[in-house]
Protein backbone atom coordinates (compact mmCIF):
# COMPACT_ATOMS: atom_id res chain seq x y z
CA UNK A 1 0.00 0.00 0.00
CA UNK A 2 2.71 2.43 1.00
CA UNK A 3 4.60 1.27 -2.05
CA UNK A 4 1.71 2.17 -4.29
CA UNK A 5 1.51 5.66 -2.81
CA UNK A 6 5.24 6.15 -3.33
CA UNK A 7 4.99 5.05 -6.92
CA UNK A 8 2.02 7.34 -7.58
CA UNK A 9 3.88 10.35 -6.21
CA UNK A 10 6.92 9.43 -8.28
CA UNK A 11 4.95 9.00 -11.48
CA UNK A 12 3.17 12.33 -11.03
CA UNK A 13 6.42 14.14 -10.25
CA UNK A 14 8.15 12.31 -13.09
CA UNK A 15 5.54 13.38 -15.63
CA UNK A 16 5.86 16.94 -14.38
CA UNK A 17 9.61 16.63 -14.94
CA UNK A 18 9.19 15.32 -18.45
CA UNK A 19 6.73 18.04 -19.49
CA UNK A 20 9.42 20.60 -20.46
CA UNK A 21 11.19 17.96 -22.56
CA UNK A 22 7.89 17.15 -24.23
CA UNK A 23 7.25 20.83 -24.93
CA UNK A 24 10.68 21.24 -26.46
CA UNK A 25 10.29 18.22 -28.73
CA UNK A 26 6.76 19.04 -29.83
CA UNK A 27 7.43 22.68 -30.59
CA UNK A 28 10.79 22.16 -32.23
CA UNK A 29 8.85 20.08 -34.75
CA UNK A 30 6.27 22.74 -35.63
CA UNK A 31 6.40 24.79 -38.79
CA UNK A 32 6.30 28.56 -38.47
CA UNK A 33 2.71 28.52 -39.65
CA UNK A 34 1.66 26.01 -37.04
CA UNK A 35 3.48 27.72 -34.19
CA UNK A 36 1.23 30.25 -32.53
CA UNK A 37 -1.85 28.75 -34.12
CA UNK A 38 -1.76 25.25 -32.68
CA UNK A 39 -1.57 25.16 -28.88
CA UNK A 40 2.00 24.77 -27.65
CA UNK A 41 0.83 21.76 -25.67
CA UNK A 42 -0.56 19.97 -28.69
CA UNK A 43 1.67 17.98 -31.02
CA UNK A 44 1.41 18.88 -34.69
CA UNK A 45 3.41 16.23 -36.47
CA UNK A 46 6.99 16.45 -37.57
CA UNK A 47 6.45 18.77 -40.52
CA UNK A 48 8.71 21.56 -39.32
CA UNK A 49 11.36 19.54 -37.51
CA UNK A 50 13.85 19.23 -40.35
CA UNK A 51 13.51 22.84 -41.40
CA UNK A 52 13.94 24.08 -37.82
CA UNK A 53 16.95 21.87 -37.25
CA UNK A 54 18.65 22.99 -40.42
CA UNK A 55 17.75 26.61 -39.77
CA UNK A 56 19.35 26.45 -36.31
CA UNK A 57 22.25 24.53 -37.78
CA UNK A 58 23.11 26.97 -40.56
CA UNK A 59 21.57 30.36 -39.77
CA UNK A 60 22.13 30.02 -36.05
CA UNK A 61 25.73 28.97 -36.60
CA UNK A 62 25.25 25.93 -34.39
CA UNK A 63 27.22 23.97 -36.97
CA UNK A 64 30.42 25.95 -36.45
CA UNK A 65 29.88 25.97 -32.70
CA UNK A 66 29.49 22.19 -32.63
CA UNK A 67 32.65 21.71 -34.64
CA UNK A 68 34.71 23.91 -32.30
CA UNK A 69 33.14 22.49 -29.17
CA UNK A 70 33.68 18.91 -30.34
CA UNK A 71 37.35 19.74 -30.77
CA UNK A 72 37.54 21.40 -27.33
CA UNK A 73 35.60 18.63 -25.61
CA UNK A 74 37.91 15.93 -26.98
CA UNK A 75 41.34 17.56 -26.97
CA UNK A 76 41.20 19.32 -23.60
CA UNK A 77 40.08 16.38 -21.41
CA UNK A 78 42.50 14.09 -23.24
CA UNK A 79 45.47 16.28 -22.35
CA UNK A 80 44.06 16.92 -18.89
CA UNK A 81 43.74 13.24 -17.91
CA UNK A 82 47.36 12.62 -18.84
CA UNK A 83 48.65 15.70 -17.05
CA UNK A 84 46.46 14.89 -14.05
CA UNK A 85 47.49 11.25 -14.03
CA UNK A 86 51.16 12.27 -14.19
CA UNK A 87 50.64 14.42 -11.10
CA UNK A 88 48.89 11.56 -9.32
CA UNK A 89 51.70 9.22 -10.33
CA UNK A 90 54.33 11.64 -8.99
CA UNK A 91 52.51 12.00 -5.69
CA UNK A 92 51.66 8.34 -5.09
CA UNK A 93 54.13 6.13 -6.94
CA UNK A 94 57.17 8.40 -6.98
CA UNK A 95 56.33 9.80 -3.55
CA UNK A 96 56.81 13.42 -4.39
CA UNK A 97 58.06 15.32 -1.38
CA UNK A 98 55.17 17.17 0.35
CA UNK A 99 52.92 15.34 -2.06
CA UNK A 100 49.76 15.88 -0.07
CA UNK A 101 50.42 19.62 0.11
CA UNK A 102 50.86 19.85 -3.66
CA UNK A 103 47.79 17.71 -4.15
CA UNK A 104 45.79 20.08 -1.94
CA UNK A 105 47.17 23.08 -3.84
CA UNK A 106 46.02 21.63 -7.16
CA UNK A 107 42.63 20.54 -5.91
CA UNK A 108 41.90 23.68 -3.88
CA UNK A 109 41.93 25.73 -7.08
CA UNK A 110 38.54 24.23 -7.91
CA UNK A 111 36.77 26.12 -5.12
CA UNK A 112 37.40 29.50 -6.73
CA UNK A 113 34.52 30.70 -8.88
CA UNK A 114 35.24 31.23 -12.56
CA UNK A 115 34.68 34.97 -12.01
CA UNK A 116 38.13 35.14 -10.44
CA UNK A 117 39.65 34.06 -13.74
CA UNK A 118 37.76 35.99 -16.36
CA UNK A 119 39.40 39.38 -16.20
CA UNK A 120 43.08 38.34 -16.11
CA UNK A 121 42.41 35.65 -18.71
CA UNK A 122 40.75 38.13 -21.01
CA UNK A 123 43.56 40.67 -20.65
CA UNK A 124 46.29 38.02 -20.84
CA UNK A 125 44.72 36.33 -23.84
CA UNK A 126 44.41 39.61 -25.74
CA UNK A 127 48.04 40.46 -25.04
CA UNK A 128 49.41 37.05 -26.00
CA UNK A 129 47.27 36.67 -29.10
CA UNK A 130 45.37 33.72 -27.61
CA UNK A 131 42.09 35.63 -27.54
CA UNK A 132 39.52 34.20 -29.95
CA UNK A 133 41.74 31.26 -30.95
CA UNK A 134 41.04 27.56 -30.72
CA UNK A 135 44.44 27.01 -29.12
CA UNK A 136 43.51 29.44 -26.37
CA UNK A 137 40.22 27.66 -25.72
CA UNK A 138 41.81 24.21 -25.63
CA UNK A 139 44.42 25.56 -23.22
CA UNK A 140 41.97 27.00 -20.70
CA UNK A 141 39.60 24.04 -20.90
CA UNK A 142 42.56 21.75 -20.25
CA UNK A 143 43.66 23.78 -17.26
CA UNK A 144 40.23 23.78 -15.61
CA UNK A 145 40.05 19.99 -16.11
CA UNK A 146 43.44 19.19 -14.58
CA UNK A 147 42.57 19.56 -10.86
CA UNK A 148 39.73 17.05 -10.99
CA UNK A 149 41.82 14.64 -13.08
CA UNK A 150 44.69 14.88 -10.59
CA UNK A 151 42.27 14.38 -7.71
CA UNK A 152 40.73 11.20 -9.09
CA UNK A 153 44.00 9.73 -10.36
CA UNK A 154 45.81 10.32 -7.12
CA UNK A 155 43.06 8.46 -5.30
CA UNK A 156 43.04 5.72 -7.90
CA UNK A 157 46.80 5.19 -7.75
CA UNK A 158 46.62 5.12 -3.95
CA UNK A 159 44.76 1.85 -4.32
CA UNK A 160 47.58 0.30 -6.34
CA UNK A 161 50.18 -1.69 -4.42
CA UNK A 162 53.58 -0.06 -4.41
CA UNK A 163 55.08 -3.47 -5.16
CA UNK A 164 53.79 -3.01 -8.71
CA UNK A 165 56.10 -0.05 -9.04
CA UNK A 166 59.02 -1.78 -7.34
CA UNK A 167 58.71 -4.91 -9.48
CA UNK A 168 58.85 -2.78 -12.61
CA UNK A 169 61.93 -0.97 -11.31
CA UNK A 170 63.62 -4.32 -10.68
CA UNK A 171 62.80 -5.22 -14.27
CA UNK A 172 64.75 -2.12 -15.28
CA UNK A 173 61.88 0.02 -16.53
CA UNK A 174 62.27 3.79 -16.51
CA UNK A 175 59.76 5.89 -14.56
CA UNK A 176 58.25 7.21 -17.79
CA UNK A 177 57.84 3.65 -19.05
CA UNK A 178 56.26 2.53 -15.78
CA UNK A 179 53.82 5.44 -16.00
CA UNK A 180 52.99 5.06 -19.66
CA UNK A 181 53.00 1.28 -20.01
CA UNK A 182 51.83 0.09 -16.60
CA UNK A 183 50.03 2.74 -14.56
CA UNK A 184 48.06 4.38 -17.36
CA UNK A 185 46.80 1.13 -18.99
CA UNK A 186 45.85 -0.18 -15.57
CA UNK A 187 43.63 2.82 -14.87
CA UNK A 188 41.63 2.95 -18.10
CA UNK A 189 38.28 2.91 -16.30
CA UNK A 190 39.15 5.93 -14.16
CA UNK A 191 40.66 7.79 -17.12
CA UNK A 192 37.55 7.22 -19.21
CA UNK A 193 35.30 8.36 -16.36
CA UNK A 194 37.27 11.60 -15.97
CA UNK A 195 37.32 12.12 -19.72
CA UNK A 196 33.55 11.76 -20.02
CA UNK A 197 32.81 14.05 -17.09
CA UNK A 198 35.15 16.77 -18.26
CA UNK A 199 34.05 16.51 -21.88
CA UNK A 200 30.44 17.06 -20.75
CA UNK A 201 31.47 19.98 -18.59
CA UNK A 202 33.32 21.60 -21.50
CA UNK A 203 30.51 20.87 -23.93
CA UNK A 204 28.12 22.74 -21.65
CA UNK A 205 30.37 25.74 -20.98
CA UNK A 206 28.99 29.18 -21.65
CA UNK A 207 31.02 31.61 -19.59
CA UNK A 208 34.53 30.99 -20.94
CA UNK A 209 33.20 31.02 -24.49
CA UNK A 210 31.44 34.31 -23.81
CA UNK A 211 34.59 35.87 -22.37
CA UNK A 212 37.37 34.52 -24.56
CA UNK A 213 35.87 34.17 -28.04
CA UNK A 214 34.25 36.45 -30.52
CA UNK A 215 34.18 34.96 -34.01
CA UNK A 216 31.85 32.25 -35.22
CA UNK A 217 34.78 29.92 -35.97
CA UNK A 218 36.00 29.74 -32.38
CA UNK A 219 32.80 30.33 -30.43
CA UNK A 220 31.69 27.24 -28.52
CA UNK A 221 28.22 25.87 -29.11
CA UNK A 222 26.50 27.04 -25.91
CA UNK A 223 27.62 30.58 -26.53
CA UNK A 224 26.30 30.26 -30.07
CA UNK A 225 22.96 28.95 -28.79
CA UNK A 226 22.73 31.79 -26.30
CA UNK A 227 23.33 34.24 -29.15
CA UNK A 228 20.76 32.49 -31.34
CA UNK A 229 18.21 32.89 -28.58
CA UNK A 230 18.69 36.64 -28.34
CA UNK A 231 18.78 37.51 -32.02
CA UNK A 232 15.17 38.56 -32.12
CA UNK A 233 13.52 38.63 -35.48
CA UNK A 234 16.15 36.43 -37.08
CA UNK A 235 15.10 33.17 -35.50
CA UNK A 236 11.72 31.92 -34.40
CA UNK A 237 10.99 30.03 -31.20
CA UNK A 238 10.81 26.63 -32.96
CA UNK A 239 14.27 27.28 -34.41
CA UNK A 240 15.72 28.18 -31.01
CA UNK A 241 14.16 25.07 -29.47
CA UNK A 242 15.58 22.99 -32.33
CA UNK A 243 18.97 24.51 -31.51
CA UNK A 244 18.49 23.51 -27.88
CA UNK A 245 17.64 20.03 -29.04
CA UNK A 246 20.75 19.69 -31.20
CA UNK A 247 23.14 20.72 -28.44
CA UNK A 248 21.43 18.52 -25.84
CA UNK A 249 21.34 15.23 -27.74
CA UNK A 250 25.07 14.45 -27.42
CA UNK A 251 25.27 15.06 -23.67
CA UNK A 252 22.03 13.20 -22.97
CA UNK A 253 23.28 10.20 -24.94
CA UNK A 254 26.65 10.26 -23.21
CA UNK A 255 24.94 10.55 -19.87
CA UNK A 256 22.63 7.60 -20.51
CA UNK A 257 25.46 5.43 -21.81
CA UNK A 258 27.93 6.34 -19.10
CA UNK A 259 25.73 6.76 -16.08
CA UNK A 260 28.14 4.92 -13.85
CA UNK A 261 30.92 7.35 -14.64
CA UNK A 262 28.66 10.21 -13.65
CA UNK A 263 27.56 8.54 -10.45
CA UNK A 264 31.17 7.96 -9.58
CA UNK A 265 32.15 11.51 -10.42
CA UNK A 266 29.30 12.84 -8.33
CA UNK A 267 30.40 10.89 -5.33
CA UNK A 268 33.77 12.57 -5.79
CA UNK A 269 32.30 16.03 -5.81
CA UNK A 270 32.13 16.80 -9.51
CA UNK A 271 28.84 18.63 -9.72
Amino acid at each position, binding site marked *: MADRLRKTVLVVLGLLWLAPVYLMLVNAAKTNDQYGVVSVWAPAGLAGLWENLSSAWTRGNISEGILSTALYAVAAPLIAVI*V*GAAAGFAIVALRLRHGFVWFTVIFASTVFPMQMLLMPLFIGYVETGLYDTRTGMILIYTVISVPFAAFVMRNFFSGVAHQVFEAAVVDGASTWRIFWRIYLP*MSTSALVAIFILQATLIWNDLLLGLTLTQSEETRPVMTALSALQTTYGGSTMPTVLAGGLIVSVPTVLVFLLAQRAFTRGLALGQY
Partner: protein
Amino acid sequence: MSTLTARRAPVDTTPGARRRPRHTYLWSARGFALPALGVVALLLYLPFVWTGYLSFTEFNGLGDPEWVGLAKYQEMFADAGFLNSLRNTLYWVVGTLVLPVGLGLLIAVLTYGIAGSFWYRLPFLLPYAISGVAVGVIWTFILQTGGALDEALALVGIVDPPRWLLDSPLNTVVMIGAATWQGAGVNALLFTIGLQSIPKEPLEAARLDGASGWTMFRTMTWPMLTPLTTVVVGLSIVGSLKQFDVIWAMTKGGPGVSSETLALTMYKETFVSNDYGLGAAIAIFLTVITVAASVLYLRRQLSGAKEL
Protein backbone atom coordinates in the same frame (compact mmCIF):
# COMPACT_ATOMS: atom_id res chain seq x y z
CA MET B 1 53.28 -9.13 -16.46
CA SER B 2 49.68 -10.17 -16.29
CA THR B 3 49.45 -9.33 -12.60
CA LEU B 4 50.85 -5.90 -13.30
CA THR B 5 48.14 -4.99 -15.72
CA ALA B 6 45.32 -6.45 -13.67
CA ARG B 7 42.46 -4.05 -13.24
CA ARG B 8 42.46 -4.20 -9.50
CA ALA B 9 45.93 -4.65 -8.18
CA PRO B 10 46.25 -5.75 -4.56
CA VAL B 11 46.18 -2.99 -2.00
CA ASP B 12 49.47 -2.00 -0.44
CA THR B 13 49.31 -3.18 3.13
CA THR B 14 53.01 -3.54 3.88
CA PRO B 15 53.71 -1.95 7.26
CA GLY B 16 56.00 1.02 6.85
CA ALA B 17 55.45 1.17 3.11
CA ARG B 18 54.97 4.91 3.43
CA ARG B 19 58.25 5.42 5.27
CA ARG B 20 60.57 4.29 2.50
CA PRO B 21 63.27 6.78 1.52
CA ARG B 22 61.85 9.27 -0.90
CA HIS B 23 65.01 10.63 -2.47
CA THR B 24 65.41 8.05 -5.19
CA TYR B 25 62.91 9.63 -7.53
CA LEU B 26 63.23 13.21 -6.39
CA TRP B 27 63.69 14.77 -9.83
CA SER B 28 61.57 12.31 -11.63
CA ALA B 29 58.68 13.03 -9.25
CA ARG B 30 59.06 16.74 -9.76
CA GLY B 31 59.10 16.26 -13.51
CA PHE B 32 55.83 14.35 -13.47
CA ALA B 33 54.11 16.84 -11.16
CA LEU B 34 55.40 19.90 -12.97
CA PRO B 35 52.93 20.11 -15.88
CA ALA B 36 49.91 20.01 -13.57
CA LEU B 37 51.40 22.35 -11.00
CA GLY B 38 52.73 24.63 -13.72
CA VAL B 39 49.45 25.17 -15.56
CA VAL B 40 47.48 25.44 -12.35
CA ALA B 41 49.90 28.06 -11.00
CA LEU B 42 50.12 30.00 -14.24
CA LEU B 43 46.52 29.91 -15.43
CA LEU B 44 44.57 29.58 -12.20
CA TYR B 45 46.47 30.94 -9.20
CA LEU B 46 48.20 33.78 -11.04
CA PRO B 47 44.85 35.09 -12.38
CA PHE B 48 43.34 34.76 -8.87
CA VAL B 49 46.09 36.99 -7.49
CA TRP B 50 45.76 39.36 -10.41
CA THR B 51 42.03 39.73 -9.83
CA GLY B 52 42.80 40.41 -6.18
CA TYR B 53 45.19 43.19 -7.22
CA LEU B 54 42.72 44.68 -9.70
CA SER B 55 40.08 44.95 -6.97
CA PHE B 56 42.23 47.68 -5.40
CA THR B 57 42.50 49.66 -8.61
CA GLU B 58 40.57 51.89 -10.96
CA PHE B 59 40.88 50.26 -14.36
CA ASN B 60 38.81 50.32 -17.52
CA GLY B 61 40.70 47.66 -19.43
CA LEU B 62 42.85 50.16 -21.28
CA GLY B 63 45.98 51.90 -20.02
CA ASP B 64 47.31 51.09 -16.56
CA PRO B 65 45.37 50.18 -13.43
CA GLU B 66 45.51 52.99 -10.88
CA TRP B 67 45.79 52.04 -7.20
CA VAL B 68 42.79 53.31 -5.23
CA GLY B 69 43.00 51.20 -2.08
CA LEU B 70 39.62 50.10 -0.73
CA ALA B 71 37.65 52.60 -2.78
CA LYS B 72 36.14 49.95 -5.04
CA TYR B 73 34.92 47.94 -2.07
CA GLN B 74 33.33 51.05 -0.59
CA GLU B 75 31.72 51.78 -3.95
CA MET B 76 30.52 48.20 -4.12
CA PHE B 77 28.80 48.17 -0.73
CA ALA B 78 27.17 51.53 -1.44
CA ASP B 79 25.88 50.42 -4.83
CA ALA B 80 22.16 49.67 -5.01
CA GLY B 81 22.73 47.27 -7.91
CA PHE B 82 25.20 45.26 -5.86
CA LEU B 83 22.90 45.07 -2.86
CA ASN B 84 20.04 43.96 -5.10
CA SER B 85 22.32 41.34 -6.61
CA LEU B 86 23.40 40.22 -3.15
CA ARG B 87 19.77 39.78 -2.15
CA ASN B 88 19.04 37.73 -5.28
CA THR B 89 22.10 35.58 -4.58
CA LEU B 90 20.75 34.94 -1.10
CA TYR B 91 17.42 33.89 -2.65
CA TRP B 92 19.33 31.48 -4.86
CA VAL B 93 21.20 29.93 -1.94
CA VAL B 94 18.12 29.51 0.23
CA GLY B 95 15.95 28.44 -2.70
CA THR B 96 18.50 25.84 -3.78
CA LEU B 97 18.64 24.36 -0.30
CA VAL B 98 14.87 24.11 -0.09
CA LEU B 99 14.00 22.97 -3.62
CA PRO B 100 16.67 20.87 -5.39
CA VAL B 101 18.10 19.51 -2.14
CA GLY B 102 14.73 18.91 -0.48
CA LEU B 103 13.19 17.38 -3.60
CA GLY B 104 16.33 15.34 -4.22
CA LEU B 105 16.04 13.84 -0.76
CA LEU B 106 12.34 13.19 -1.26
CA ILE B 107 12.92 11.43 -4.58
CA ALA B 108 15.77 9.37 -3.13
CA VAL B 109 13.67 8.25 -0.17
CA LEU B 110 10.66 7.49 -2.38
CA THR B 111 12.65 5.46 -4.89
CA TYR B 112 14.78 3.69 -2.30
CA GLY B 113 14.18 -0.01 -2.30
CA ILE B 114 11.31 -0.14 -4.80
CA ALA B 115 11.49 -2.33 -7.88
CA GLY B 116 12.66 -0.50 -11.00
CA SER B 117 13.93 2.46 -8.99
CA PHE B 118 16.31 3.39 -11.81
CA TRP B 119 13.40 4.04 -14.17
CA TYR B 120 11.55 6.08 -11.57
CA ARG B 121 14.64 8.25 -11.09
CA LEU B 122 15.38 8.66 -14.80
CA PRO B 123 12.97 11.55 -15.55
CA PHE B 124 14.69 13.59 -12.86
CA LEU B 125 18.18 12.73 -14.06
CA LEU B 126 17.55 13.53 -17.71
CA PRO B 127 17.57 17.33 -17.27
CA TYR B 128 20.94 17.10 -15.55
CA ALA B 129 22.49 16.04 -18.85
CA ILE B 130 21.10 19.18 -20.48
CA SER B 131 23.25 22.31 -20.34
CA GLY B 132 22.30 25.39 -18.37
CA VAL B 133 21.82 27.33 -21.59
CA ALA B 134 19.46 24.72 -23.05
CA VAL B 135 17.57 24.62 -19.74
CA GLY B 136 17.26 28.39 -20.01
CA VAL B 137 15.99 28.12 -23.59
CA ILE B 138 13.29 25.61 -22.63
CA TRP B 139 12.15 27.51 -19.56
CA THR B 140 12.09 30.85 -21.35
CA PHE B 141 9.73 29.21 -23.79
CA ILE B 142 7.57 28.01 -20.91
CA LEU B 143 7.60 31.18 -18.84
CA GLN B 144 7.62 33.98 -21.38
CA THR B 145 4.51 36.12 -21.53
CA GLY B 146 1.88 34.09 -23.35
CA GLY B 147 4.14 31.05 -23.15
CA ALA B 148 3.34 27.44 -22.37
CA LEU B 149 2.57 28.04 -18.70
CA ASP B 150 0.29 31.00 -19.38
CA GLU B 151 -1.52 28.95 -21.99
CA ALA B 152 -2.01 26.09 -19.55
CA LEU B 153 -3.24 28.51 -16.87
CA ALA B 154 -5.71 30.04 -19.31
CA LEU B 155 -7.23 26.59 -19.77
CA VAL B 156 -8.13 26.48 -16.09
CA GLY B 157 -9.50 30.00 -16.15
CA ILE B 158 -6.51 32.06 -15.00
CA VAL B 159 -6.37 34.65 -17.74
CA ASP B 160 -4.26 37.24 -15.99
CA PRO B 161 -1.17 35.33 -14.87
CA PRO B 162 1.82 37.00 -13.18
CA ARG B 163 4.58 38.29 -15.43
CA TRP B 164 6.95 35.48 -14.56
CA LEU B 165 10.18 36.80 -16.03
CA LEU B 166 9.51 40.51 -15.91
CA ASP B 167 8.77 41.24 -12.25
CA SER B 168 11.26 40.99 -9.41
CA PRO B 169 11.65 38.95 -7.24
CA LEU B 170 9.32 36.58 -9.10
CA ASN B 171 11.80 36.21 -11.98
CA THR B 172 14.48 34.99 -9.58
CA VAL B 173 12.05 32.57 -7.97
CA VAL B 174 10.97 31.01 -11.26
CA MET B 175 14.58 30.71 -12.41
CA ILE B 176 15.37 28.85 -9.20
CA GLY B 177 12.50 26.62 -10.29
CA ALA B 178 14.21 26.05 -13.65
CA ALA B 179 17.48 25.26 -11.88
CA THR B 180 15.57 22.85 -9.64
CA TRP B 181 14.29 21.07 -12.70
CA GLN B 182 17.89 20.65 -13.78
CA GLY B 183 19.48 19.83 -10.44
CA ALA B 184 17.07 17.84 -8.29
CA GLY B 185 17.91 14.52 -9.97
CA VAL B 186 21.59 14.81 -9.16
CA ASN B 187 20.85 15.34 -5.51
CA ALA B 188 18.46 12.40 -5.62
CA LEU B 189 21.26 10.28 -7.03
CA LEU B 190 23.70 11.43 -4.34
CA PHE B 191 21.18 10.78 -1.58
CA THR B 192 20.49 7.36 -3.08
CA ILE B 193 24.18 6.51 -2.90
CA GLY B 194 24.07 7.65 0.71
CA LEU B 195 21.01 5.55 1.53
CA GLN B 196 22.59 2.49 -0.05
CA SER B 197 25.69 2.88 2.09
CA ILE B 198 23.77 2.90 5.36
CA PRO B 199 24.29 -0.40 7.20
CA LYS B 200 21.13 -2.49 7.28
CA GLU B 201 21.47 -3.95 10.79
CA PRO B 202 20.60 -0.88 12.90
CA LEU B 203 17.61 -0.21 10.66
CA GLU B 204 16.43 -3.78 11.09
CA ALA B 205 16.87 -3.53 14.85
CA ALA B 206 14.85 -0.33 14.92
CA ARG B 207 12.17 -1.93 12.80
CA LEU B 208 11.95 -4.84 15.23
CA ASP B 209 11.56 -2.29 18.00
CA GLY B 210 8.50 -1.02 16.19
CA ALA B 211 9.88 2.05 14.45
CA SER B 212 8.49 2.76 11.02
CA GLY B 213 7.80 5.47 8.49
CA TRP B 214 8.50 8.99 9.62
CA THR B 215 9.90 8.00 13.05
CA MET B 216 12.29 5.60 11.40
CA PHE B 217 13.46 8.28 8.96
CA ARG B 218 13.85 10.98 11.60
CA THR B 219 15.62 8.94 14.25
CA MET B 220 17.63 6.46 12.18
CA THR B 221 18.01 7.21 8.48
CA TRP B 222 18.45 10.97 8.63
CA PRO B 223 21.22 10.99 11.28
CA MET B 224 23.10 8.33 9.36
CA LEU B 225 22.78 10.37 6.17
CA THR B 226 24.36 13.44 7.78
CA PRO B 227 27.85 13.06 6.29
CA LEU B 228 26.41 12.91 2.79
CA THR B 229 23.91 15.67 3.48
CA THR B 230 26.83 17.91 4.39
CA VAL B 231 28.41 17.23 1.01
CA VAL B 232 25.15 17.78 -0.90
CA VAL B 233 24.40 20.99 0.99
CA GLY B 234 27.95 22.27 0.47
CA LEU B 235 27.93 21.45 -3.24
CA SER B 236 24.49 22.99 -3.68
CA ILE B 237 25.39 26.24 -1.97
CA VAL B 238 28.55 26.53 -4.05
CA GLY B 239 26.62 25.62 -7.21
CA SER B 240 23.96 28.25 -6.53
CA LEU B 241 26.62 30.91 -5.89
CA LYS B 242 28.27 30.08 -9.21
CA GLN B 243 25.01 29.87 -11.17
CA PHE B 244 25.40 31.89 -14.36
CA ASP B 245 24.19 29.96 -17.39
CA VAL B 246 20.50 29.57 -16.57
CA ILE B 247 20.12 33.23 -15.59
CA TRP B 248 22.09 34.42 -18.61
CA ALA B 249 19.96 32.35 -20.95
CA MET B 250 16.67 33.42 -19.39
CA THR B 251 16.89 37.08 -18.41
CA LYS B 252 20.55 38.15 -18.71
CA GLY B 253 19.97 39.55 -15.25
CA GLY B 254 17.16 41.79 -16.42
CA PRO B 255 14.86 43.54 -16.79
CA GLY B 256 17.39 46.18 -15.80
CA VAL B 257 19.42 44.54 -13.06
CA SER B 258 16.40 43.04 -11.30
CA SER B 259 17.39 39.37 -11.54
CA GLU B 260 21.18 39.74 -11.42
CA THR B 261 23.18 37.66 -8.98
CA LEU B 262 26.78 38.33 -7.96
CA ALA B 263 28.05 36.02 -10.71
CA LEU B 264 26.26 38.11 -13.35
CA THR B 265 26.94 41.51 -11.83
CA MET B 266 30.64 40.71 -11.85
CA TYR B 267 30.51 39.81 -15.53
CA LYS B 268 28.44 42.83 -16.53
CA GLU B 269 30.43 45.38 -14.50
CA THR B 270 33.59 44.07 -16.10
CA PHE B 271 32.73 43.33 -19.70
CA VAL B 272 29.72 45.56 -20.29
CA SER B 273 30.51 48.60 -18.12
CA ASN B 274 34.31 48.16 -18.36
CA ASP B 275 34.68 48.82 -14.63
CA TYR B 276 37.34 46.20 -13.99
CA GLY B 277 38.09 47.36 -10.46
CA LEU B 278 34.48 47.00 -9.35
CA GLY B 279 34.13 43.70 -11.21
CA ALA B 280 37.22 42.41 -9.42
CA ALA B 281 35.93 43.55 -6.03
CA ILE B 282 32.68 41.65 -6.65
CA ALA B 283 34.66 38.60 -7.76
CA ILE B 284 36.64 38.71 -4.52
CA PHE B 285 33.47 39.07 -2.48
CA LEU B 286 31.87 36.15 -4.33
CA THR B 287 34.99 34.08 -3.77
CA VAL B 288 35.07 34.73 -0.04
CA ILE B 289 31.55 33.41 0.43
CA THR B 290 32.10 30.53 -2.02
CA VAL B 291 35.25 29.40 -0.25
CA ALA B 292 33.50 29.64 3.09
CA ALA B 293 30.72 27.41 1.77
CA SER B 294 33.22 25.02 0.18
CA VAL B 295 34.95 24.41 3.49
CA LEU B 296 31.73 22.63 4.48
CA TYR B 297 32.33 19.75 2.15
CA LEU B 298 35.92 20.10 1.01
CA ARG B 299 37.44 19.30 4.39
CA ARG B 300 35.51 16.08 4.45
CA GLN B 301 36.56 15.21 0.92
CA LEU B 302 40.23 15.91 1.42
CA SER B 303 40.37 14.00 4.69
CA GLY B 304 38.61 11.18 2.90
CA ALA B 305 41.25 11.34 0.20
CA LYS B 306 44.02 11.16 2.76
CA GLU B 307 42.63 7.95 4.19
CA LEU B 308 42.64 6.27 0.81
